[in-house]
């Protein structure tokens, strides 16, 4: 009966929240949105909100002490720990983002789930878990305190709390933006509805609530998404036909990497220019497979927290191995949709649909973006009801990711910042209340970050690399501490700090342009300007004339007066003679196509509103048109990589952003290990007695008694490893 009562409370809350959402959806206008939900879809979404709130209310009574609130009472079974471990990482940003990656990079995207995850997860399960588990730490920074002392713990604790709320805010912003683009929902409503829901259930149930919702989300994501690869492959004519079509279409969709192989895992990694990712095998193995992967899976507290709360060490290890097994399956719902995007997303005339990166000026004006590949497939194959389930899976993924970050923030703040630095001797109830209110504080800071991103969207560029700044050095410090008893507190601190600094320095270096980074020459025709468009060969635009209105030019030389030097900046009115801008623009002696973007203009003949984007055609400006010209050359550009600098970090000028990130992580790990070892050799280690249960060789792994063979984590780890090798050979 109590459950019924909780359901009623949740329904009551939802009734207050949902009308705003539905009203906004209805007002949004369907034409410009990717997906149109029917009433049954809205009911399915509403039921999800009611159930998660009900779970939060129900679990409140089970989170009455700090241990139950922060560590869920350490009673999880292996399956729940494993599902939660993998779900915490399976957010919607992950599924949409890696589908987009597979659309952009082909099958190479699957490496994030294979070499980029499995060896590290198995290492966590078999080698590192005993240390985390036996020392009964509340967090990874907590382990650093025990192993190295207060300095590394404070550095890790503060950087982690900062990181989690920033990432949580970025996820919230991304969710609101995506729901706005896909469904037309108001961004403010999306942010507040999801935040209030997450805030309520984490406040009430703590980590237990977060874990319950992660397990729920796992089922929703799989059941809501798996139909896309099934139907897509049927529609493409089978697996081999799909790969063949994807490879053929990739040459049209990604013309800059025409000869790249999109359908293999390894045979295209011989050099930087034979694959769409612009990376070689060394970067893939040592950058992704070693530095990034081990950093993320072994020391990201959000992940580790999910399994150290298992009821015993064997469950923690088996849970982690289960997580590895499930992780290997994720390419089915992530990589295959990306490949399907190349194969089955077609324009009405049967030509492949071209999607572009978010940074492309045509994005969301005339062309959809890489990130839309999964929603586009959902719209193509899922009818009413199933579409609601798919969208619910997406929302569940966002909210569960946010809840994970908020609960991890509350734990690390309370145990690794507040308790050791601000209030050492408070009661258990005090820390419990601190955790509860920190959950709310975490949500509020996330909301503030999300709103900051409205105005400073470039912060997203910075946030994406934060993981590389902190997590990789953290892994270097932790692993040396676990495996080498000679590692000293000073070595740990300086190794960690030096690696963070070197990571940041490399990032600044590859984004620095001594000669200035110049955006592509482009013309933006302002809203409601009047244009005439000449077409040839059907719908192909061959000439655009701006009859009246305003245009903005970037890095375009404008021949304002005959016989005089063209101008690149300032505000002018087109003279009586008119102006014609060539479709080809010289930029530092390199010929580039002039890009013309028209988000909302009026056609002179029909008076109809129109939008389009074209490249390489001439643009005629009639007398009276106003020009606002600007010349941009940035010394530092977070959105661009300087090839002259990337060759020092990633060994080649041909290395693309992904390769640069992988190599940066590798160097960062190398610096961390080198400095920690170097400083440790010249400083005093901790006494052996203080290192018991923290370092290999000084830790007795407790005998948990005999177990049947099918409960042995080492056996299952070996099975997972064999499957991993087989997958890599099959898709070589």
């Amino acid at each position: 009966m109590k459950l019924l009562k909780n359901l009623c409370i949740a329904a009551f809350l939802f009734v207050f929240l949902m009308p705003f959402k539905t009203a906004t959806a209805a007002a949004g206008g369907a034409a410009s949105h990717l997906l149109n939900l029917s009433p049954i879809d809205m009911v399915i979404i509403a039921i999800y909100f009611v159930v998660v709130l009900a779970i939060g209310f129900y679990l409140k009574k089970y989170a009455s002490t700090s241990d139950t609130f922060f560590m869920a009472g350490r009673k999880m079974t292996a399956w729940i720990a494993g599902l939660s471990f993998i779900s915490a990482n399976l957010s919607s940003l992950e599924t949409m983002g890696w589908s987009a990656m597979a659309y952009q990079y082909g099958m190479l995207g699957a490496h994030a789930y294979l070499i980029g995850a499995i060896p590290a997860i198995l290492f966590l399960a078999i080698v590192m878990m005993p240390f985390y588990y036996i020392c009964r730490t509340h967090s990874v920074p907590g382990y650093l305190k025990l192993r190295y002392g207060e300095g590394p713990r404070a550095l890790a604790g503060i950087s982690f709390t900062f990181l989690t709320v920033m990432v949580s805010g970025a996820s919230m912003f991304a969710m609101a933006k995506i729901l706005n683009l896909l469904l037309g929902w108001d961004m403010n409503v999306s942010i507040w509805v999801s935040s209030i829901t997450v805030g309520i259930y984490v406040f009430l149930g703590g980590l237990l609530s977060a874990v319950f919702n992660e397990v729920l989300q796992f089922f929703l994501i799989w059941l809501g998404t798996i139909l896309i690869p099934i139907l897509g492959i049927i529609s493409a004519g089978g697996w081999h036909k799909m790969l063949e079509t994807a490879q053929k279409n990739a040459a049209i969709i990604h013309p800059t990497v025409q000869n790249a192989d999109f359908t293999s895992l390894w045979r295209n990694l011989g050099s930087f220019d034979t694959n769409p990712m612009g990376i070689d095998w060394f970067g893939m193995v040592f950058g992704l497979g070693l530095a990034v992967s081990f950093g993320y899976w072994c020391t990201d507290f959000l992940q580790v927290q999910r399994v150290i709360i298992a009821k015993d060490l064997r469950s923690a290890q088996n849970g982690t191995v289960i997580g590895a097994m499930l992780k290997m399956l994720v390419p089915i719902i992530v990589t295959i949709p990306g490949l399907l995007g190349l194969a089955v997303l077609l324009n009405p005339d049967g030509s492949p649909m071209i999607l572009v990166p978010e940074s492309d000026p045509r994005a969301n004006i005339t062309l959809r973006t890489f990130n839309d590949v999964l929603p586009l497939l959902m719209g193509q194959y899922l009818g009413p009801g199933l579409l609601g389930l798919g969208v619910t899976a997406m929302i569940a993924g966002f909210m569960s990711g946010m809840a994970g970050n908020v609960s991890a923030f509350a734990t690390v703040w309370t145990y690794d910042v507040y308790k050791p630095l601000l209030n050492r001797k408070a009661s258990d109830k005090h820390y419990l209340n601190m955790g509860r209110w920190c959950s709310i504080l975490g949500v509020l800071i996330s909301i503030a970050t999300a709103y900051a991103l409205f105005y400073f969207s470039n912060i997203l560029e910075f946030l994406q690399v934060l993981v590389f700044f902190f997590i990789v050095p953290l892994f270097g410090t932790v692993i040396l501490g676990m495996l080498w008893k000679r590692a000293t507190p000073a070595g740990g601190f300086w190794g960690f700090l030096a690696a963070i600094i070197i990571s940041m320095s490399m990032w600044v270096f590859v984004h620095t342009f001594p000669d200035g980074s110049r955006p592509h020459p482009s013309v933006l025709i302002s809203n409601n300007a009047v244009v005439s468009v000449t077409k040839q060969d059907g719908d192909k635009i061959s000439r655009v004339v701006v009859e009246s209105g305003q245009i903005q030019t970037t890095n375009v030389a404008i021949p304002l007066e005959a016989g005089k030097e063209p101008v690149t900046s300032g505000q002018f009115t087109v003279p009586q003679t008119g102006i014609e801008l060539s479709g080809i623009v010289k930029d530092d002696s390199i010929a580039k196509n002039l890009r013309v973007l028209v988000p909302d203009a009026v056609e002179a003949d029909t008076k109809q509103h129109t939008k389009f984007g074209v490249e390489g055609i001439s643009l005629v400006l009639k007398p009276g048109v106003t020009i606002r010209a600007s010349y941009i050359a940035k010394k530092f550009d977070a959105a661009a990589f300087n090839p002259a600098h990337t060759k020092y970090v990633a060994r080649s000028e041909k290395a693309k952003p992904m390769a640069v990130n992988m190599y940066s992580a590798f160097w960062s790990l190398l610096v961390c290990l080198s400095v920690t070892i170097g400083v440790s050799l010249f400083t005093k280690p901790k006494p052996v007695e203080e290192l018991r249960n923290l370092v290999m060789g000084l830790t007795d792994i407790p005998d948990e008694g005999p177990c049947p063979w099918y409960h042995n984590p080492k056996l299952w780890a070996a099975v997972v490893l064999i499957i991993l090798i087989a997958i890599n050979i099959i898709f070589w």
Partner: protein
Amino acid sequence: MHDEHQIPIWFFIGLLLTIYGVLILGCGIYNVINPPEHPVKLANLHMDIWWGILLLVIGLIYSIKYRPSGTD
């Protein structure tokens, strides 16, 4: 996790999937009786009916197997 009287997460999952199964199956049957004007691709496979049945079966198995005892 498994406090003696705590309802397991599997029950909540079963409950949600049962409800979703009923709704999606119902929607699929409605679409057979009244075919939509603009059907999605491969609508002829009636995936909503099959998926609704699958969700319903999984949901019922979980709901029944992990149903709360009388004390809850």
